[in-house]
């Protein structure tokens, strides 16, 4: 395995609606800031990979215009995933492992505010038997949460505690969208949005973009004083049919975490991309993170997806938030999580370490 590291990270603020700027106009300043941070222009990278969704943009091949922000002339080596940018990072990591690149630019961007996001998400479901019922994403998550409660896996109070913790952490993150300090009891007093989910149990709808620069070996050390080395990265997918999955735990997260080596050392920081509180708890448990306050792991210091949820960039941002704490020396070892599909169907785990 080659040593590959995250050597730069930038993101736009997460906002409920980018009223005037289009996706590319949101992306351009992010890539410019990354260039200034690292001294490496996107077009000079050996490989470029992006994550976005034409369903969010409402037009086919919308991702192609994203290359306007890169400056793709003369032609560049480039690829795209119709997934969160965390999976674009995985592809770029593979490309570097294969010896076909030393540096790679990875970015994710999305403007879910243009459509009706919970309904748009229905289009990722089984197209024959489930999608025609148009189950919206919040109702689907509500069914999963109800199962977790009924099976005694977790409690509404634990969910409210996760909601409170992430938004309180986000008060230190100027890029977060939901930043507040409310008690668990205040949250439990909220009406249900999709029983048993309250509004505070749900991630916001956010527009935004983020970008990461990857580099191998000594090139990484040239670019960044303290690179965040990728010591393990894995993604595992479960079946799309909810009826054949154990919704009370995240088995794919657990397997990915084992393969990525999460448990082989202490974890200073964990950045999780679960868009609902009960899912965040399931992911925490699958990662083997202790939930009590004596734990050494700081979970979601940025606020996580529950404080800012720019779809197609939110998972990549978790890797970036984790890496930036290694850049600064605040953390030595961390884990980042990204998710895709309904009810935590597919999960990616990335273990990062400083030297």
């Amino acid at each position, binding site marked *: 395995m080659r040593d590959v590291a995250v050597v730069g990270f930038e993101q736009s603020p997460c906002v409920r609606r980018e009223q*005037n700027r289009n996706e590319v106009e949101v992306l351009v*300043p992010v*890539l410019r800031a990354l260039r200034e941070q690292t001294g490496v222009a996107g077009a000079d990278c050996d490989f470029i990979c992006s994550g976005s969704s034409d*369903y969010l943009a*409402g037009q086919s091949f919308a991702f192609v215009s994203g290359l*306007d922000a890169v*400056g793709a002339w003369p032609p560049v080596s480039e690829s795209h995933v119709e997934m969160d940018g965390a999976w674009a990072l995985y592809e770029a990591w593979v490309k570097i492992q294969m010896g076909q690149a030393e540096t790679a630019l990875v970015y994710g961007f999305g403007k879910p505010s243009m459509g009706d996001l919970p309904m748009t998400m229905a289009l990722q479901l089984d*197209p024959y038997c489930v999608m*025609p019922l148009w189950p919206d994403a919040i109702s689907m998550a509500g069914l999963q949460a109800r199962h977790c409660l009924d099976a005694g896996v977790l409690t509404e109070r634990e969910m409210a505690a996760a909601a409170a913790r992430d938004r309180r952490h986000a008060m230190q993150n100027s890029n977060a969208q939901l930043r507040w300090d409310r008690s668990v009891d205040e949250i439990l007093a909220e009406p249900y949005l999709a029983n048993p989910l309250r509004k505070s149990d749900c991630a916001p709808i956010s527009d935004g973009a983020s970008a990461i620069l990857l580099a191998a070996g000594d090139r990484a050390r040239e670019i960044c004083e303290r690179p965040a080395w990728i010591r393990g990265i894995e993604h595992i997918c479960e079946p799309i049919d909810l009826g054949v999955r154990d919704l009370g735990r995240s088995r794919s997260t657990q397997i990915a975490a084992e393969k990525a080596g999460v448990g082989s050392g202490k974890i200073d920081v964990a950045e999780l991309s679960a868009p609902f509180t009960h899912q965040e708890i399931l992911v925490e448990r699958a990662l083997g993170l202790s939930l009590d306050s004596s734990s050494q792991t700081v979970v979601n210091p940025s606020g996580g997806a529950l404080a800012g949820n720019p779809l197609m960039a939110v998972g990549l941002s978790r890797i970036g938030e984790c890496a930036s704490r290694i850049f600064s020396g605040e953390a030595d070892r961390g884990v980042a999580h990204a998710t895709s599909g309904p009810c935590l169907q597919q999960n990616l785990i990335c273990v990062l370490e400083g030297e």
Partner: protein
Amino acid sequence: MSDRQMDGDKPSEHDEDVTLLRVPVSLDYDYSAGVSASRFLRGIEQGKLLGQRCPVDGRVYFPSRGSCPQHAVTFGDETVDLSDKGTIVTFSIVRVPSANIPLELPYIAVNVVLDGADTILMHVLDANPEDVHMGMRVQAVWKPREEWTTSTANILYFRAIDEPDADYDQYKEHI
């Protein structure tokens, strides 16, 4: 399998395979053209053709998407007023109807580079198919002013003007 089937309900109506499933999909979007395209569309609403200049190499993009796809720099707020005259760089004589083009066949699809611009505009030319040629000088024919909206359809079509053909060297990079 449903309970009714398990109870031995008459099999006949369940025996046939489902061979067709209709799933109408419709999503509504509240689309924003973006800062730069909005500026361009507000311009054309007033009959103005606004381009933007790349600060790196000075090339004028029309319409502008707000940043240079070659140098990845933003154009800022400055615009360049362009003429509605230009030069045909390539063309195609269309003899097949298309649902979204209400023109009589045959019509001529053209790539025009407007005077002062460095990128091409795709439009149609009102001319005899025998007369169209590369380097031909043309000018936009606009809808009546009261019908102008934020749309490039404010230009009905281009038509030839009485000017000598442009030099090949002036437009060869757009072919």
